[in-house]
């Protein structure tokens, strides 16, 4: 039992830290620090800087142009990046589609699509959820019917994150209406500018536009855009969902968030003293910090198991549940810390609002963030679904 990083890992940590100090653009870091929406250009700039260094596709094998980092290295990067206010890497092409193509795609698909993910030619988004298929994803209804060299796609996807920036979408579509739910699904790559594809914005409760509906009306998709075999899409989707396992707990985000809470609470005045010295508030902060200390170690234990090649177990579900609870608690502390100044609506959606809203605590839109991050326990398999998985596996045979 040894809780410290190896000398190699320490050297890697120093290297990452130096890279972030030297290469992370200050304007982007400031936006991340204040939770301001990043533009497409901001995200593409940061991707290009990482790609230049060979650090963009951190989990890809070197053969495909990836960094092939170990789970521990990726954890180190995630922690340092969050601490430095680096933007998260947009995951759709790099963490989601990439590994699926590498495992199940044809040689032609790999040669064509993977380099375009790295150099930013394509911006991918994910077409999974539908209005009637959320937690019960396998009940999806978007239909693809084979017609010669094409599929004709009809249906609607929803919660498509950053779909407004995307030129490509990977979709789960139903290719066999008669098969058992999971067995009639295929994995299809669709160009967003194909006639019949329409993107409609969904504005979230904090005023942000980060998700969309994507509608398909008689959309013609060439058959070579089918990944793997027809009707095997569910297998690929499950692989995708379980592949990206490190970082699930969002430890780096929580650590950065806690720093923000303390900074605000030092600046906020409460009865003539800094709020951080108030016993009730200090106790709230300490409680979350104690939880986070433990979860960081849970996270590292799971990463070590993964590094040793052990099969993924329930830990991913556990990390997601606990990680979301901790992050949401930190968001709650931040809005409390700000006090009455949590009420102004600081949003890109309101023209000029950010210039007019005075922010003596330099806190950013903490209340908006509090509401926005309610999504953490909903998306990617809600916490209820994760608890169901944990219960089902540990008490198999006991039913639900």
């Amino acid at each position, binding site marked *: 039992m040894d809780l410290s990083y190896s000398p190699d890992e320490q050297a890697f940590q120093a290297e990452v830290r130096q890279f972030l100090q030297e290469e992370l653009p200050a304007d982007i870091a400031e936006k991340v620090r204040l939770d301001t929406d990043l533009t497409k250009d901001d995200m593409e700039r940061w991707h290009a800087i990482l790609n230049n260094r060979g650090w963009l596709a951190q989990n890809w094998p070197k053969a495909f142009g990836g960094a092939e980092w170990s789970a521990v290295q990726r954890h180190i990067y995630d922690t340092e990046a969050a601490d430095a206010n680096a933007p998260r890497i947009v995951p759709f092409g790099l963490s989601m589609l990439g590994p699926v193509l590498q495992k199940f795609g044809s040689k032609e698909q790999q040669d064509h699509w993977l380099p375009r993910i790295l150099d930013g030619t394509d911006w991918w988004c994910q077409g999974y959820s539908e209005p009637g298929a959320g937690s019960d994803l396998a009940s999806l209804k978007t239909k693809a019917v084979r017609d010669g060299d094409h599929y004709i796609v009809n249906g609607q996807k929803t919660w498509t994150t950053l779909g407004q920036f995307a030129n490509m979408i990977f979709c789960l579509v139903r290719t066999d209406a008669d098969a058992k739910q999971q067995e009639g699904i295929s994995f299809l790559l669709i160009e967003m500018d194909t006639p019949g594809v329409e993107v409609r914005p969904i504005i979230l409760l904090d005023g942000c536009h980060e998700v969309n509906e994507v509608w398909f009306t008689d959309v013609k998709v060439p058959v070579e855009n089918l990944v793997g075999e027809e009707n095997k899409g569910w297998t690929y989707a499950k692989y995708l969902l379980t592949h990206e396992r490190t970082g699930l707990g969002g430890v780096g985000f929580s650590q950065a968030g806690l720093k923000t809470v303390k900074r605000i609470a030092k600046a906020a005045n409460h009865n003539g003293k800094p709020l951080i010295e108030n016993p009730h508030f200090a106790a709230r902060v300490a409680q979350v910090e104690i939880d986070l200390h433990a979860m960081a170690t849970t996270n590292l234990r799971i990463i070590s198991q993964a590094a040793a090649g052990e099969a993924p177990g329930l830990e991913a579900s556990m990390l997601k549940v606990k990680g979301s609870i901790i992050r949401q608690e930190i968001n709650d502390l931040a809005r409390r810390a700000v006090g009455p100044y949590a009420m102004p609506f600081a949003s890109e959606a309101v023209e000029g609002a950010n210039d007019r809203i005075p922010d003596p605590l330099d806190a950013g839109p903490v209340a908006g963030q509090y509401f926005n991050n309610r999504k953490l*326990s909903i998306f990617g398999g809600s916490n209820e679904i994760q608890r169901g998985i944990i219960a089902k596996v540990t008490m198999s045979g006991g039913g639900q």
Partner: protein
Amino acid sequence: MNFDLTEERQMLQDTLRRYLREQYGTARRNDILASDTGFSADIWNELAELGVLGALFTEDQGGFGGAGFDIAVVFEELGRAGVVEPILDSALIGGRLLAAAGKTDLVEQVIGGALHLAVAHGEPDSRYDLDHVNTTASDDKLTGRKAVVMNAEAADHLIVSAKDGDGIALYLVDKGAAGLDIQGYPLLAGGRAAEVTLDNTPGDPLGLTLADYEAANRLALIAQCAEALGAMETATALTKDYLMTRKQFGRPIGTFQALAHRMSDLLIELEQARSAVINAAGYADDKDADLHLSASKNLIGRIGRLVAEEAIQMHGGIAMTQEYELAHIAKRIVMADHRFGDTDYHLERFIALSAA
């Protein structure tokens, strides 16, 4: 012991509930949210005509209510519909302060819906403390800065607190007064507020002190707790309906015990919140009023967070969208914790008052 509303209050509740159900639906409210002024003059005038503003004042003051339960009845209904018009600040706090100052003619205009007010008390570093005022008054000229002043842009007059020698006094400031600067912005849960700076701005002394402000603040606490209760009722009703209609895995999601039990917990806590509002209104004139008000605001803050978060979680993604009713209602509930002292502030005040 009698927990029934009087006939008058029952009528007020029925009338207001029916009016808001018919006139203040999600679409109408979302239009108001998106408007430049952040509130509807039509709604305001119609509420005045219905007697809703008059219910906030005693007969002596020219109204026909004014007690804790009158205020609770009105604000519970406003909360249920997610009303964003600044009735709490403009009519209740502002109006009752003017009534305390004996400004009968102005109060009459408030009750009629013609006069709009803003109350500028809190300052950038006062947080929730009522006695923290750095704005100064010298020869009835005011200088200082006031923070997150509700309805400042639309107000005809501002009621401004300032240090006058050793004490805190309240002044009536005309919206066109010299040296008055108002920087407005929208609020996350609807409506508008502003940063207000005063630079040697002339004010008319109202003859009121901090004690008068504290009295008005007690009414504000009742109103805010009742408003949050009404919003929680809507949040739980929407969630219950959704659990019974949304199907996943071939059955309504409310039939999953994991969700059914959580829904039951919300209903249990909602009754706690209802009792807390009754306590706040019922003990409004008690010698221990502040203790009861702090207890209520603390409980409403805790349960409000639970209800808002659980309602969103049990809905899933749909509740995260701005257009859906619950999104607005949840914001009203959580933002109520940022007014007149939050959960922690009132916990501390309760401890202090209990020990006294």
